[in-house]
Every structure is written in structure tokens, then in C-alpha cells.
């Protein structure tokens, strides 16, 4: 019996597992519209099939002249109106609830870029995984550094475009601990060739579809622990600092272009880079010291390495890579000097 009910419940197989309060009203309305539509569909198609069979062409059978059915005509013009008004009303109400974040919400900053995400937590630390606390209101303040993207977590039923030069926001209240998916829902391009126009390995293709990120719903305690873990005290321990630099290399997408094993990617490898003197596109020789690395990260176009296209393929990380991240990157580069 329970199994039958489950199979009959459209929400159970047409929508993903609900992980936030926002899903409740949406799933309910989805179910309501499903059954209204199903009733209309069965009515229309049922009548169509029945009439087509009952009044099928056969010897001796004749059509009857069409009459006027003013009541019927008026009826089916007017009858749907109350249903439509109700659907509109429920949909709009749900929408308004989704757009007004409660005052006590925790604020997380979201940056979308081609092709990844950066989440900055209230303590100023950031990550490429979105952790959120269960049973707390969370508000995301979002913007894009390049083209349109959209923040979409099916489990939360939330979606909102990220627009360059504009802030948009969403809020939600997770109801279940666990992991779910975050995807980009506004087309933002893709790349499968390197700077020289050579085809990359399929595993290196990047684009709209690869803007996937893990969303982790923690208990509030675990969430605090997670945030603290993002800001370890690393002063005076170059090995740990380098370790952190390596994490940043993957988390901030540097790894998408720069290798650390000396192999050639779409950008210069970091192996053996630090302290080396090398040629720029304008012919000058520059030593890769702390200042140069910093400048390369914040204003990639200031100096372009010889042999790479101008303007640089590398986006500026101004604002997303913090000073202490740069320190860690430098420590990491030093650790792979040779």
C-alpha cells in the first residue's frame, strides 16, 4: 500500500531529495499542478480516443452537423480561470517567501567565474566547497567576475543568476545534514583546446557543465569547526604553509592551467619557476621573486611571459586570492623550486 502511494506521488520520483525548508512549498505546489494537469490530460486525451473510436468512419456511418454549444463554450473559457488564479497566487507567494531573507541569516559571499565557484565565509576565509549549517538561515550574496552564471542547488530548489557588476542573493534553511550538488544553470561557455589551439585531454575540458561544487550541510558545531579549520595558524612553519599553498593551487583553479610537475599545460609550469630569471613578451628578463609572483596573480597583464598570448589568458585574482594566500602560494613555489 505504502509502495503504491509512493509510486503515485509525483514528487517522490520527479524531484530530488529535499534538503531545505524552501523545498516544502515548492514540492507541494508541484504535486498540486501535477494532479490538475493529469486530470485535464486524461480528460482531453480520453475523450479524443473515445470519440475517435466511437465515431470512427465505417460503411453507413455519417457525421452529424455541428451545433452551437454556447454554454459549453463559455464554460470552458471561464472554468479554468479560478484554477489559474490559484496557481498564480501560490506560485507568487512562494516566490516572495524565497526572495526575502530573514534578518538573522548567516551571510556567505559567492563568486562565480569561468569555470568555478569561490565561497567566502563570515570569518573572511574562503573555499571552493560550500559548507552550510543545518537549521540556520543562510543568505548568499553573489556576483560574477566574468559572464552570467546561475547558482542552482536542486536539493534546496534554489536558483538565481549571478550577474557581473551586480549583486544578487538567495537564502535557504537546510533541514538535513549530508552532501548535495551545486551546479551552474546559466550557460557560460566551455573550452577543450589549449592556448595554442591543440586539443586537450577530455579530462581537462572545462566549461559550464564543470561548474559543479559540493554542498555540505553540517551540524552548526561542525560548521564552526570547518570554518576554524579554514584559517589555521601557520606562522613560522614553512612546510605547513607550503602545504596550504598546494591546497590553494587546486581550490582556486590555478591547477586548471598551471602544472607543478614541469609538464606543459596552457600556462607556464610552477616547477622550478621561483627565483629563476626568464623572458617576458616585451623582451625584458625578469626574476620570479615574491613581488613578481604577487603581481602575476593580481594583475596578470602587467607582464606577460614570452610565448603566451596577450591579453593574458589568466584572470585577475584580485579580491579572491588574499595576501596570506599569496604567501602560501609563494611558500609552495619555493618548495618545488627544483
Amino acid at each position: 500500500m505504502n509502495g503504491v502511494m509512493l509510486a503515485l506521488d509525483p514528487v517522490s520520483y520527479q524531484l530530488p531529495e529535499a534538503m531545505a525548508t524552501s523545498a516544502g512549498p515548492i514540492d507541494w505546489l508541484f504535486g498540486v499542478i501535477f494532479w490538475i494537469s493529469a486530470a485535464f490530460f486524461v480528460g482531453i486525451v480520453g475523450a479524443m480516443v473515445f470519440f475517435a473510436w466511437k465515431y470512427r468512419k465505417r460503411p453507413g456511418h455519417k457525421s452529424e452537423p455541428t451545433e452551437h454549444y454556447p454554454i459549453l463554450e463559455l464554460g470552458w473559457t471561464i472554468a479554468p480561470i479560478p484554477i489559474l488564479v490559484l496557481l498564480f497566487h501560490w506560485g507568487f507567494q512562494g516566490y516572495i517567501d524565497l526572495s526575502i531573507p530573514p534578518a538573522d541569516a548567516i551571510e556567505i559571499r559567492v563568486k562565480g567565474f569561468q569555470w568555478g565557484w569561490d565561497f567566502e565565509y563570515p570569518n573572511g576565509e574562503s573555499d571552493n566547497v560550500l559548507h552550510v549549517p543545518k537549521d540556520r538561515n543562510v543568505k548568499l550574496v553573489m556576483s560574477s567576475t566574468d559572464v552570467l552564471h546561475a547558482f542552482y542547488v536542486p536539493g534546496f530548489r534554489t536558483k538565481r543568476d549571478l550577474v557581473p557588476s551586480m549583486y544578487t542573493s538567495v537564502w535557504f534553511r537546510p533541514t538535513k545534514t549530508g552532501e548535495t550538488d551545486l551546479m551552474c544553470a546559466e550557460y557560460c561557455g566551455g573550452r577543450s583546446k589549449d592556448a595554442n589551439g591543440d586539443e586537450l585531454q577530455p579530462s581537462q575540458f572545462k566549461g559550464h557543465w564543470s561548474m559543479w561544487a559540493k554542498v555540505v550541510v553540517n551540524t552548526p558545531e561542525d560548521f564552526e569547526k570547518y570554518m576554524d579549520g579554514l584559517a589555521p595558524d601557520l606562522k613560522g612553519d614553512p612546510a605547513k604553509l607550503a602545504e596550504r599553498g598546494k591546497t590553494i593551487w587546486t581550490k582556486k583553479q590555478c591547477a586548471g592551467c598551471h602544472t607543478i610537475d614541469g609538464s606543459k599545460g596552457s600556462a607556464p609550469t610552477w616547477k622550478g619557476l621561483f627565483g629563476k630569471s626568464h623572458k617576458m613578451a616585451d623582451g625584458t628578463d625578469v626574476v620570479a621573486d615574491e613581488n613578481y609572483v604577487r603581481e602575476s596573480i593580481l594583475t596578470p597583464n602587467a607582464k606577460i611571459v614570452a610565448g603566451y598570448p596577450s591579453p593574458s589568458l589568466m584572470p585577475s585574482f584580485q579580491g579572491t586570492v588574499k595576501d596570506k594566500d599569496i604567501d602560501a602560494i609563494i611558500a609552495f613555489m619555493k618548495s618545488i623550486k627544483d
Partner: protein
Amino acid sequence: MSAVDVPVTGHANDHGDPHVNYLKAKSGIGSWLYTLDHKRIGILYLAMVSLAFLAGGIFALLLRFELFTRGKTIVDAETYNRFFTLHGAIMVFLFIIPSVPAALGNFCLPIMLGAKDVAFPRLNMWSFYIYLIGAGISLYSIINGAVDTGWTFYTPYSASPTKNYVWAMTFGVFVLGFSSILTGLNFLVTTHTMRAPGVTWRRLPLFVWGMYATAIIQVLATPVLAITVLLLGMERVFGLGVFDPRLGGDPVLFQHFFWFYSHPAVYIMIVPGMAIVSEIIATFTRRAIVGYFAIAMSSLSLALLGFLVWGHHMFTAGMSEFSTMLFSALTFLVAIPSGVKVFNWTTTLYKGDVWLTTPMLYALSFIFLFSIGGLTGLFLGSLSVDIHLHDTYYVVAHFHYVMMGGTVMGFIGGLFYWWPKITGKLYNESIAKVGWFLVFVGFNVTFISQFIMGSRGMPRRYYDYLPQFEPFHKASTIGSWILGLGMLIEAYALLSAVFSGKKSPPNPWGSAGYEWNTATPPVLANFVETPVITRGPYDYHLATPEELFDGFPEDAPKK
């Protein structure tokens, strides 16, 4: 038809004997390339839109094949992105928009009015050549410029410095739009001024009403494209900040402009499909359509509402709450005229004499599929639910049910219905029905899986996907193969009729429609004498079943 001795004059005379089968009246390549005959222009259009449909269909099959497995299946990511751009742009701008009006409309509308041709035959020919030029410009810029923006060309992605061709592409679309303005204008004037004596507005065939409503949209909506092209151009050339945030423009503004044209365009696509279905259902139930007036008016109100709902494509884009509310409310209104049509068609079957020919099967499929397309629109019109469904495969499935399940089914049904009229030959019913069955099944397999994966959270325009979506993608791809096979069979059924089909009698369906009341295929001047109409196009009660095939007593020359 009572014979009134009006000598046939006009341009038709300059190009051959007006009383000879239009296909035989003149021969040679030039007789096609410079033709002013609306029937031949319709066929030229038909050839081009069929090619476009074939190309768009091949891209669709390639896309589906790429998605058959996770990761790379046949092409790399950049190629995939170009393919779906080409698929969308070709299907929308080169195929669906011109399909019914320019091909079947051109052929049938003047005959249904009892006219010799459209009002401006020369303009009609130009509209075809402008279509070719526009198609050339757009295809050249998409292919040469490796445009990978999707058919919606959203800024700022489409404004990136490396994407120089988007402006050219939009210009191409504008040229195409210009060609549909000319067709629209021609239909409006023809309908107003060239109706034969007795063809009153209340006796206008529903197909003509549909073409008329479409023509209004074509003439009014397309100029917006011109403004968009102009603004994009000014931004490119003078650095004026309109859409590009790097220049201080507003990227969302582009979406307003784009949909202000493209949403009415959706009705340019669907209203003609509905118009064909009305004709087919009347013929094969032997009954006047229930609610003739309501159907005619619902076409006009769809045309009007089409202008007011463009914002429903942008519910997640950051419009004000007030505009969002307004657009949602207006969107729900569209359900009323759409519902009216479906209810009227269904009730027409009641007490009819239902003859399940291939065109009728397509018309009934239209009702089935369009109902699904329309009802799933209720989910998308409800704001909160749309937040979840927007830009997922749910939307993809929804508009394929409307555009392909609706317009394309109507178009193919119309082709089979008017094929004897156009070619003078009968197609093979059994082959055509097998094709129909595969098309219908394949279509549903392809797109029902897309509904489910979409509502489960699969975003559209993805080269690769998460493991949980794999079974749905597999099913959808297999469906696309069935659908493709069905389409091939239908193409074979139509083409083989041309070469080896049996000769068609003048009125193979026993239809009361005016277009069947002249020779099949029509003579160059459509009618030997200007017809005088004394009955409606659906007055089946005025004839016995036999007389339907042999000629209405009403129409017999009165001595």
C-alpha cells in the same frame, strides 16, 4: 461554384497558360528561380525549410549521441557547444518560423481565398531571396565565427572580444525577420483585398485566420530585432555601453530585447501549426469545427498575448518583484485561448465520422503532445516552481513538446494533407502510418525522459553530467534514434509519392475546403474562372458522403 465569366488576367498570364497545371505551365530552371507564382514560391520555401530541418535534425542526433555516455562520446566540448548553437538557431530561425507560413501558407492561402495569387507576387519572390541571404549570413557567421553562445546569444558571454561574429549573426537573423515581414504583409493585404466573391470573414477558412494572426505578429515583432542589431552595432563600433557591463551596460537588458522578439516568435511558430490542425480535423471528421469563431479569435488573442509575456524567460535573472508578478499573471492567461482550441477540436470529433488517415493521426498527435506541452507550462508559469525548473531539461522538454509536438506535427500533418494538392500524387498510407508511429513513440521516449531528469535537477546545455542522470540521457538518446528513423520513413513516403505515387483525384479526402474545389494540382491561375462562393468551408451537411468526393451540389453550375 456558379460560373461567372470573369476573364483571367494579371501576371499569371505573362508566365504561361493560366489554365494548365502549374507544374507543367512552364519548365526549366529559370521558371522556378524567377517564378512569381505563389505555389512555386511555396515549393521553393518548402525545399529550403526541409533542408534546414534535415540539418537541424542531424545536429540534434549528434548532440543526443554525444550525451549517450558520460564524458566524451564523439566530439569535444567546444564542438558540442557549437552544435547546440547550430541546432537551435537553424531549427528556430531557418526552419520553424518560416515553415508553415512561407511554405504551406504561400501555397494554400491564395487558393483558399479563391484568389489568383498573393497581393504582391514580386515581393513574395523577394522574400524568398531575402530568406536565402539571411540564412547565408547567419550560417556563415555561426560556422566561421565558431559561435558557441546558444541560440539566445546572451550578453556578456556573447560580447567577449573573441566573439566577433555575434553581431553578424544577429544581423542575419534580422534579415531573416525581414523576409518574414514581407510574407506577413503579403498575407495581410491578400486576405483583406483578394477574397473571392462570397468569401466573407465568417467564411474564412481557419487556416487563413491562423495565417492572418501570424502575419500580424511577424509585422509587429520583427522591427525590435532591428533595434537590437543597431544597439549591438553601436556598442561594437562606438563602445557605447548598452549590454556589456565592462562598458557600463546592463547585461540583463539584452535578455529583454531578445525575448521581446523571440517570445512573439514562439507564437509565429505555434499558431500556424494550430491552423493546420483545424483544417485537418474538420476534413476527417466531416464536421464543421466546434466554435469556429472562438478558434479564430483565440488565434488573435494568442498573437496579442504573445507580446506581453516575454519576461517569463527571466524569472531568475533579477527583475523587480512587481514585473515578475505581472509576467507570471499574463503567462497564465495564455492557457485560456490554448485550452479553448484543444477543447473545441476534441468536441469536434464527437458525432463526427472520424477517418484516421496519416494527416489525421498527426492532428490527433498534435492534441496529445501539445496538451502535455501546454500543461507543463503551468509548472513553469508558477513562479516558485519555475525557480527550480528554470534552465533545466524540464524547460527543454516543455518547449520541444510545444514546438516539435505542436508545430512540427502540424507541419508534417499538413504536408501529407496537402501533398496530393501540391504534387498531384497520392502517397502510400501504410508506409506513412508506420513512420507516424515511430515518430510519435520516439518523440515521447526522447522527451519524457528529459522532463524527469530536468525536474530532478539536470541543467541544460551541459556537455557532461553527474552519474545520477545517466539512465535518463541513455533513454532520451535511444528515443532520438526511433524518432530519426520515423522521420526518414516519412521523408521517403513523401518523396516516393512524387516519383512513383498514383495520380490523385481532384479531392482525395472528400474535403469541403475551398482549396479542394479546383483542379489537383491547381492550374497556374488557381481557378479557371473566378469562383463565387455560396457556402462555408466546413459545410459538410450540404452534401452526401459521395458528393463530398464528386463535388458539392451547391457548387454545381446553376443552369
